[in-house]
């Protein structure tokens, strides 16, 4: 904008920052970094000039593990084979099919090898830089202050080879923006610890109270764990409970009924043709996929409390049977917590707790692959303890909610007694649902905006809906409140947002 008057106004065509010496910008782009940047903290800032010329004394790029092209190739091979159906293969001739497979496999591995050769990462100051691409080179710099979650994933193949994938989530991407696949487990663990520490908002990664605490997880299971857990163990979900919780789902409970009806039909028809039986089995498999996947994904779910940096704390979840995941979420990144009480779990007084983080698609997308469980299944006491920890100020036993006015009964004959809102000390809570009860809690510090919406029918009935928008997930919604109450609620919410904001400054 403000060009220096000394250069006789040549508008923006020749940017020569070396001569003009702009007074306002503090980080002058040209001088190469001070020579004593041996990795640690003080680099803080000066933007890199020209991504392709790392002339500064930055730590050297590191490559991913040499086996990763093989694994990535195998991964893409699976996809391709899945695309070519087996029926096509048989019409093809098996020899040709085998040759095709080999060609594809070699191609995929060569492609991954080239990719691997050109991929590198290093930590510069408080940034993680990832270089990749052969033709379209790309350097991605991720400021670690913006880190939302870190996850160490180990798919089955990676478990067999002792490797792991490190995934970073930042705001602004629907998908994972920075997967580092693959590293050795030790490297992934070390890198994760370093990133998590750097991600704290103060530069105190030397004086962390926890330096070499041994993993304190009681390991009674025969499960081949990757011991990435450091930190104070909070809770372990019993696998028996997990299995039972998935048995107590509509799919599983209705399954015998469906199978029985099919069998009765068979017995009346009198002939057992194999195709019918096979298709029945396939249908059973399809129905059972979701519960079975949940059991596999959440197997041996463990939760630990880890220090991030300074007073910062984070939660670490480790779970999975075939693919193990190990996820670290700084507590100040939690945008919302959703507690669900399914109908069939009510006899056991169980609940499920999920969280949403910016940058990760939130709960309610029906995507079982998401890592959003804080507690896959737990009793009331455990749930209460963990939600208090994850979201200070949210005490499930003490949440009070106010219902909508009684005239709403005409709009929601069943649900109206369950629709409630509550302004707690630090969180806003909304409840809903008759069969599957749900509670959404959003801390005031994470509310992005508040909206009051009034449709035509609502105007006739003097009602309005209050929406609370958050970054991840669907936000919270208080439908059909009395219109005056809705205005007051919106005002109270914005006042509390400001108060919470002022408190954190």
């Amino acid at each position, binding site marked *: 904008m403000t060009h220096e008057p000394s250069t006789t106004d040549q508008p923006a065509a020749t940017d020569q920052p070396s001569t003009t010496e702009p007074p306002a910008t503090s980080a002058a782009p040209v001088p190469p970094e001070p020579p004593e940047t041996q990795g640690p903290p003080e680099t803080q800032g000066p933007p890199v000039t020209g991504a392709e010329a790392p002339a500064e004394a930055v730590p050297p790029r590191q490559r991913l593990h040499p086996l990763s092209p093989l694994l990535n190739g195998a991964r893409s091979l699976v996809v391709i084979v899945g695309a070519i159906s087996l029926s096509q293969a048989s019409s093809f001739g098996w020899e040709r099919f085998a040759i095709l497979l080999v060609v594809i496999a070699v191609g995929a591995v060569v492609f991954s090898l080239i990719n691997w050769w050109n991929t590198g990462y290093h930590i510069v100051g408080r940034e993680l830089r990832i270089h990749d691409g052969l033709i379209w080179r790309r350097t991605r710099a991720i400021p670690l202050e913006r880190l939302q979650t870190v996850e160490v994933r180990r798919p089955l193949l990676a478990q067999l080879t002792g490797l792991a994938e490190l995934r970073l989530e930042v*705001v602004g991407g629907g998908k994972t923006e920075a997967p580092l696949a693959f590293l050795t487990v030790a490297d992934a663990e070390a890198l994760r610890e370093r990133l998590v520490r750097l991600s704290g908002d103060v530069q105190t990664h030397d004086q962390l109270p926890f330096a070499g605490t041994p993993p304190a997880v009681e390991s009674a299971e025969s499960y081949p764990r990757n011991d990435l857990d450091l930190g104070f163990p909070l809770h372990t979900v019993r696998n028996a409970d997990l299995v039972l919780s998935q048995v107590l789902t509509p799919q599983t409970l209705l399954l015998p009924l469906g199978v029985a009806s099919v069998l009765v039909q068979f017995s009346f028809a009198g002939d057992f043709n194999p195709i019918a039986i096979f298709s029945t089995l396939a249908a059973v498999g399809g129905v059972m996929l979701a519960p079975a996947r949940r059991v596999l994904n959440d197997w041996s779910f463990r939760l630990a409390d880890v220090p991030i940096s300074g007073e910062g704390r984070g939660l670490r979840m480790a779970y999975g049977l075939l693919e193990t995941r190990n996820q670290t979420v700084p507590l100040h990144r939690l945008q919302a917590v959703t507690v669900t009480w399914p109908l069939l779990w009510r006899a056991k007084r169980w609940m499920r707790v999920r969280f949403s983080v910016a940058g990760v698609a939130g709960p309610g997308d029906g995507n079982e692959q998401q890592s959003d469980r804080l507690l896959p299944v737990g009793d009331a006491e455990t749930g209460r303890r963990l939600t208090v920890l994850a979201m200070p100020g949210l005490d499930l036993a003490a949440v009070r909610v*106010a219902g909508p006015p009684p005239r709403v009964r005409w709009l929601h004959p069943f649900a109206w007694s369950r629709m409630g809102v509550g302004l707690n000390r630090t969180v806003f809570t909304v409840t809903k649902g008759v069969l599957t009860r749900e509670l959404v809690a959003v801390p005031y510090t994470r509310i992005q905006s508040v*909206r009051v919406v009034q449709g*035509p029918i609502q105007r006739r009935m003097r009602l309005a809906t209050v929406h609370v928008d958050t970054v991840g997930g669907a936000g919270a919604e208080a439908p059909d409140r009395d219109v005056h109450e809705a*205005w007051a609620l919106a*005002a109270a919410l914005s006042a509390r947002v400001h108060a919470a*904001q002022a408190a954190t400054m």
Partner: protein
Amino acid sequence: MDAVTETPAPLDSGEVRIDPLSPWPDTVEWKPVSHDLIWVELVRLAIWLVILMGALVVGWVLADHWLFGAGVGLVLLFGLWRAIVIGRAVRAWGYAERDRDLLVRHGLLVRRLSIVPYARMQFVDVTAGPLERSFDLATVQLHTAAAASDAKVPGLRPAEASRLRDRLTALGADRAEGL
């Protein structure tokens, strides 16, 4: 969970009092948008009507089916109703800059009010299409990190739009958090 307290429980902190005679959003000093926006909206409506009618008439001539005639009638009716309502719709737009947040309200059929704290602002857009430019208007839109937030103020004079933009960015620069 079970204990549902009395209805005005959310107001326990005493920050807000419900006064049924002057409910809260009316006590805020709302600024209207420029009435020239009516013309912008009318021209926009006319363009749409012409396109739709053209397509329908062509269809009618080619296919000679009574449904197309009915379609023409419906579109005309809708256009007429919309043209009558536009004036009120534009007058329903309003915005208010409070100390720490921006309020925007709009809509007749579905009434909406958005409250966006300045601190949650990610960026501000000022846009002006050819139609708006010809009436010397601009639109300011405030974006937060949440996709659902909508805080859009159309029909501002360019001077007012840039003033609003500058004020928003200045206030938002203090601290952007909440992620």
